[in-house]
């Protein structure tokens, strides 16, 4: 029987996968992949609560905005990555240390 908790567990596992990807990878694009996973976990939670707790559709609207923000983030993020690659010829996150010193 599927209930709220099964969806929450799926979204929780998705979130953890995203966290591990962001921390373990050193490639900027791979980190962006992890970000997508985390955003999806959040959006899934909104939809699950809408279905099982209060049937008003505000949660769906929030999920829509999350998807919109994910798209915008991917576009700008990848533009930055490509620009970074043009300048540094690398997409390793450890090469982005200009602001550190």
């Amino acid at each position, binding site marked *: 029987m599927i209930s709220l908790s099964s969806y929450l567990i799926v979204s929780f596992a998705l979130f953890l996968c995203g966290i591990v990807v962001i921390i373990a990878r050193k490639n900027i694009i791979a980190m962006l992949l992890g970000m997508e996973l985390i955003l999806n976990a959040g959006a899934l939670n909104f939809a699950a609560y809408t279905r099982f707790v209060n049937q008003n559709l505000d949660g769906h609207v929030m999920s829509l905005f999350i998807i919109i923000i994910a798209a915008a983030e991917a*576009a700008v993020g990848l533009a930055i990555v490509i620009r970074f690659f043009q300048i540094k010829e690398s997409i390793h996150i450890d090469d982005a240390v200009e602001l550190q010193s």
Partner: protein
Amino acid sequence: MFLDTMFLLSALATLGGALMVVMSKNLMHACMYLLLSLFGVAGLYATLGADFLAATQLVVYAGGVVILMLFAIMLTGGVEEFVNKFGINKIPSMGTTKTYTIGAIVSLIFSFVILKTLSPLFKNYSQADLPPMESTVEDIGVLLVTDHALAFEISSVLLLGALIGAAVISRPRKINGGSK
């Protein structure tokens, strides 16, 4: 019965895809597994009765984000250098055992926090009778232009900003001379 099967399949696709995004050593493969995972999430939305969300997920992710990711991977080359330009050893860009250990520890901490928050829900949650699924398209449309009109406008401005920003950032500039 049908919903249960659909949920199991979608959850399998989602979690399997996400796990393979974590494990895969090839960035291109990781991206394809991300696509699988996102399709699984779309299936989960469908089992939740969120038909419009599921379609949006398909349109935005399969049509846009994943192709953009593949493009970026292709344009930045799949090559991996083990040494940076000063000759110092770099951590391999797809991660090592060390980085994975750190990631696992951090995720363990996160999971403690989240499970602590969620545990009363798992214990005391009683399933009420669910209403039948209905079409959500009209209601979402109405909500977007009434209750959430401001957020809708702001998100359109955000998308316009992202469009222009992405175009400006990635535009090739002349190295010497030019506008500066």
